[in-house]
């Protein structure tokens, strides 16, 4: 099982000091956070993609390429890459290049984004969100698997005799997760291709995601990729920890109360009861995260949101120390217990190459 962090890349005022970091500081902070993730033994760093203030990460492969050069083991991912408004040809090229530079330590979560105007800014129509996600990925999937592609669709110039370069490392494309908060069509899409399904469950009650993940698992089996239990599931989480849970609550409350996504709404306590947010001791985070398996089944990747709502870099780095030293080692051991042998580990380039080599020719 893989553990990591994902960053939205928001530039938010620290409500306790009134200070807002510059974009430059935030970009550098994201890099520092990624490097820390590797240092404390996490497996994955994923960056968001946004095209409007107050967010900085508009160019994920640039950032991830830089992080790749400064890390050894960390898997570099996205949360999410906009499959609707990016040209699938450019996604194929950018992530292939990144995959070579990072020696395979690359995968991506595809999503549709959460900002309506991004569609028109990139010449698309938001009402076509799902069809864009389906058609663009159908093309991306082929560009990474066929050396020469002839293609015609509804949303993009046709291609005749096109070869996307560089070809994927070792002939194995980066692993793709399909991210969705509410659309069963995307769970169906992930199942159809046998790709991963990332349910970003951090802002919503679990019942909703239990249905969505259950649908994905059933359809994954329906399309012949394995048993429902072998489907590749990723989940989000959101935590803030101190040795003493009262200290964690006291320190995090002003950030919660003013957070861009849910601030000025329910109380911290109510939001913790309704969503996976856990503010407390490392043991509370361990207990809460272990519950995910009861709700969603054995899964492959757990990403935590650690660096939003104006938390200063120093605090985030302290949080990562606690996560890496006190929480993740216990989670690794506990999740490994009673995990059925047929449930796969989180996908890596090495595991995909091995699967590719053992697959029958032409498959």
């Amino acid at each position, binding site marked *: 099982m893989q553990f990591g962090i994902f960053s939205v890349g928001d530039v938010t005022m620290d409500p306790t000091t009134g200070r807002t970091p510059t974009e430059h500081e935030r970009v550098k902070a994201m890099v520092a956070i990624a490097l820390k993730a590797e240092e404390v033994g996490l497996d994955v760093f994923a960056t968001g993609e946004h095209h409007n203030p107050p967010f900085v990460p508009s160019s994920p492969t640039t950032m991830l390429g830089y992080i790749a050069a400064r890390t050894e083991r960390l898997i570099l991912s996205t949360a999410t890459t906009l499959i609707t408004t990016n040209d699938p040809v450019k996604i194929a090229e950018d992530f292939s290049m990144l995959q070579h530079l990072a020696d395979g330590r690359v995968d991506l979560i595809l999503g549709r984004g959460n900002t309506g105007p991004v569609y028109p800014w990139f010449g698309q129509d938001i009402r076509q969100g*799902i*069809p864009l996600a*389906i*058609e663009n990925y*159908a093309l991306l999937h082929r560009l990474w698997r066929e050396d020469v592609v002839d293609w*015609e*669709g*509804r949303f993009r110039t046709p291609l005749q005799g096109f070869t996307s370069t560089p070809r994927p490392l070792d002939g194995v494309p980066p692993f793709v997760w399909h991210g969705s908060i*509410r659309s*069963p*069509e995307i*769970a*169906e*899409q992930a*199942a*159809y291709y046998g790709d991963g399904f990332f349910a970003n469950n951090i*802002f*919503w*009650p679990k019942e*909703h995601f239990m*249905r*969505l993940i*259950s*649908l994905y698992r059933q*359809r994954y089996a329906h*399309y012949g990729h394995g048993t429902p239990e072998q489907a590749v599931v990723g989940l989000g989480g959101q935590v803030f920890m101190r040795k003493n849970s009262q200290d964690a609550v006291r320190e995090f409350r002003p950030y919660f109360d003013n957070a861009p*996504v*849910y*601030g*000025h*709404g*329910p109380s911290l306590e*109510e*939001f913790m*009861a*309704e969503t996976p947010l856990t503010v407390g001791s490392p043991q509370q985070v361990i207990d809460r995260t272990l519950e995910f398996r009861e709700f969603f089944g054995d899964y492959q990747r757990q990403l935590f949101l650690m660096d939003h709502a104006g938390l200063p870099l120093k605090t985030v780095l302290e949080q990562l120390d606690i996560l890496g030293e006190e929480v993740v080692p216990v989670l690794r051991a506990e999740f490994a217990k009673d995990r059925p042998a047929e449930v796969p580990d989180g996908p890596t380039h090495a595991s995909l190459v091995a699967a590719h080599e053992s697959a029958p020719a032409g498959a």
Partner: protein
Amino acid sequence: MKLVVVAAGLTQPSSTRLLADRLAEATSGLLPEPPEVRVVELRELAVDVANAFVTGFPNTRLREVIEAVTAADGLIAVTPIFSGSYSGLFKSFFDVIDPTALAGKPVLLAATGGTARHSLALEHALRPLFSYLRAVVVPTAVYAAAEDWGGGGDPFTDGLGERIARAAGELADLLARRAPEPREGTRADGRQVEDLEDLEDVVPFEQQLAALRPPTA
């Protein structure tokens, strides 16, 4: 049979609640078997409704109420008239319900206000809202102005009691004509409440792909 009454009155006791109770009682009395009546006071859910706007999801308490409303066989919705229209809380509650979830549901609309001059707000504000939601709204909507509680009508208008009876009769007729009692947790349109996300309706992927293929010349 389940009858849910949504009352958006803000005071306790409120004339909105009084009107809601009279409508529920009149409707119940006209049905062959007494229905299970549940009254929802939106006042008690005001913070939950506001939080649902901020967080994007209804919390457990509000979710349970929404499920009760969408699963009801019939709905009585009563609001005070503020500034010529339904109250903001009344509209907000219906805004956090899926806009297709009340399709086909029999609904009786009613409102209260200080003066009878606002009575057409029922026709100009509430009825279009429920038309948008594709609910089946009974022809008589009941408005109770302050003076109605102490008057008996006039040569041009029935008194409040008669109007309540007429509206209740219309709702009871609609309810009586409905199919046999649906299973527990079933919505007006027959779907299970727990399937609000329509997961069982997922379109097979081949079909989604085929819809995108350019027409072959």
